[in-house]
């Protein structure tokens, strides 16, 4: 459903994404992990059509994003890491606007928007201006906006930030159910427990390159780490020095 071929992005002499090849099939919940600055957001923004790759291609549902961007984007819902919502629109108006961008309107969209808002406890706020929403409420609204037009693929950058435990749980269930119905989700996250519990497959990216990709078992095998959890695999594969001398740091 999402196919990345030799995807490369350079900023001057700095290579943010270095020749990534990835294939996320239909109905899969795919996790994209990596340390800060590893190239996750850049990759996701390229898939969303916001950034142009320096090299390589992106296919969404078999449609090349560069040659037919409208057709490719019509299959896509994108949730950015720093979501922007028009402050002076109400929640309902915003969902209507986003659905309209995908040429969808009418009673079914109204119904779906109401259901999504109710799911995230935003029903009472639907006619309030977004400027009065808390950070978590904005996050819930932007997530709702990605589901309102029922895209075949959802690309989501850091979905759990700012969500309360109930909303986080709902979102996990929603993702799982959505993929069971044949849709595809690719998400980046730093919450390793979420990735471990939720994702069918996980890719770990570092310095713009994919270090490992596969199911949890495959990752364990790759890291030669026996029954380790994802956190240990992650740290081992990304070479993070978790055992930094804390005392030295505190004494500095």
């Amino acid at each position, binding site marked *: 459903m999402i196919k990345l071929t030799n995807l490369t992005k350079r900023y001057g002499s700095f290579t943010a994404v270095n020749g990534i090849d990835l294939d996320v099939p239909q109905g899969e919940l795919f996790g994209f992990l990596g340390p800060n600055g590893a190239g996750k957001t850049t990759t996701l923004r390229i898939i969303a059509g*916001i950034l142009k790759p320096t090299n390589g291609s992106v296919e969404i549902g078999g449609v090349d994003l560069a040659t037919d961007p409208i057709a490719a*984007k019509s299959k896509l819902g994108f949730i950015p890491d720093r979501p922007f919502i028009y402050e*002076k*629109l*109400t929640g309902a108006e915003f969902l209507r606007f986003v659905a309209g961008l995908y*040429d969808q309107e009418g009673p079914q969209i109204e119904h779906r928007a109401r259901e999504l808002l109710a799911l995230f406890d935003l029903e009472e706020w639907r006619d309030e*201006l977004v400027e009065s929403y808390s950070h978590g409420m904005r996050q819930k609204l932007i997530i709702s906006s990605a589901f309102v037009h029922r895209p075949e693929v959802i690309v989501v950058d850091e979905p759990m930030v700012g969500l309360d435990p109930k909303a986080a749980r709902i979102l996990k269930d929603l993702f799982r159910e959505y993929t069971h119905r044949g849709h595809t989700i690719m998400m980046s996250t730093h919450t390793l427990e979420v990735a471990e519990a939720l994702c069918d497959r996980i890719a770990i990216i570092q310095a713009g390159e994919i270090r490992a990709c596969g199911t949890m078992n495959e990752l364990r095998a790759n890291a030669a780490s026996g029954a380790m959890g994802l956190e240990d695999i992650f740290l081992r594969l990304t070479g993070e020095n978790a055992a930094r001398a804390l005392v030295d740091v505190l004494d500095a």
Partner: protein
Amino acid sequence: MSQRTSAALPDPSTGHLLAPKWLTARARAATGERGNALRLSFLAVFGLLFWAFIFVMVFRLLRFFRGVQEIGPLLAGKLLGLILVGFFSILLLSNVITALSSYFLARDLDLLVSAPVDWLKLYLAKLIETLVHSSWMVVLMAVPIFTAYGVVFGGGPLFPLVVVATFLPFLVVPAVIGSAVTLLLVNIFPARRTRDILSVIAVLAAGGIVVLFRLVRPERLARPEGFRSLVDFITVLKGPTSPMLPSEWVQRAVMSWVGGRTEALPFYLLWSTAAAATVLGAALHRWLYPTGFSKAQESAERWVRSGRLGRAGRSMLAPFGVVRRELVLKEIRLFFRDTTQWSQLILLGVLVLVYVFNIKFLPLRGEGMTFFLVNVVPFLNLVLAGFVLASVAARFIFPGVSLEGRTLWLLRSSPMSMRELLWSKFWVGTLPLLVLAVAIVGVTDYLLQVTAFMMAVSVFTITFMTMAIAGLAIGFGTLFPQFETENAAQIPTSFGGLVFMMSSVVLIGLVVILEARPVYSYLAAQAYGGQADATAMVVGFGSAAVICGTTTLLPISVALRRLEA
């Protein structure tokens, strides 16, 4: 319910893309904030007074022109041409800068670009947005001017339609050109070099405006005696000022209509140029926008130069203590690292350039130029310099507290008084403003070759006025903060910005009125002999100084109470 099918791809209309802007405007208007009605009526009254003022000025001038045989309508036409050239240059500059924000930096672009939106619809939506944001002030200025033309020259009931039919394409052309220039610049320069792009815009704009002003040669019209004969003068008046500019076409269309001999050619030229420009602009957008937009997303700079300058700043500010030093350094760094902030310096540079340029070419030598006139002009120069300073303060000092916005928690939760914050903002804003003010007044007074007394009065007044204007900017900026704004450039045009500008105008007027008597007394003594009135001097200049001092301190203390509340 219209669901897309696999064959029919989504195609949201331009109107749909603009819907959030319209809904936002409606929500803003409908927000039931306390005092909203008061604000609106205040704005309405102020707007009407402003219109009335412009209308009366232009009306009187045009009535005078109409009374001048032979050349009256020609002069009126020339004046309109000059005004329109001014509008055109302002529109070009403002569209280039607005386009950078609306096409490349606006926060809704992530949403729109990642959605299946057709390139043409996006182009048109952003073009309309750019046009509206950059042209509304010019339109507001144009309404009373055209009304005066219609009234004085008997434009008839259809005159407003004629004006709309000419002015609309006149607004479209600079919007398209501005957007295209921005698009080219964003594509040509490496994305991290947004600053370079804006520097180029600055040079282009300043050069363009000077060229435009030179093209129309306004000083020639003010001095008919400079021509060898009346025939020469009339020839210049009859000739087109700049026949290739849309401003000339609007002028011809309007003047031919009020002259009762409607020319169709200017209308054709305006509409065909606007249409052709839009088509070419759209083609350019299709070709270059995807690459340009992608580049613009990369423009966050990874490296900033601090080095020697930073160290020098630190040691220079060391005597003021750590808190003040860090606050001042933070203000300076944030200003120069925020493109939307410092790019406004471009506007300032152009404003000052045009101002000094005009002063240089004022016809103050030759017949009929009395000692009084030569010395009164520098005094009035103070008023104009005051307006320039007020507009600069509105752009740079007024937004200070608003820009703290979401980081105010950090300052408020730290062991630092709000007094330190406000005064650091005051000094960081005032010192450059003061240098600018004294430079403007000094240079223009030098060009005007004023007496030493007038030079001293000018420098004394502008120094006090600068402090007072900065105090007002800090005060009103704190009383009417815009914490949620997306674009710092929009803060000065908020309600609080308007109140600040009006207060500044009142202050400038008051200072000039208070100083008028002692200046007159001095000039009379110089011209006719005798002694200047010492009491008038002390009272006049003293009360001006007291008012400026109070206006500096009082708003800051009110602002302080507001911040500490």
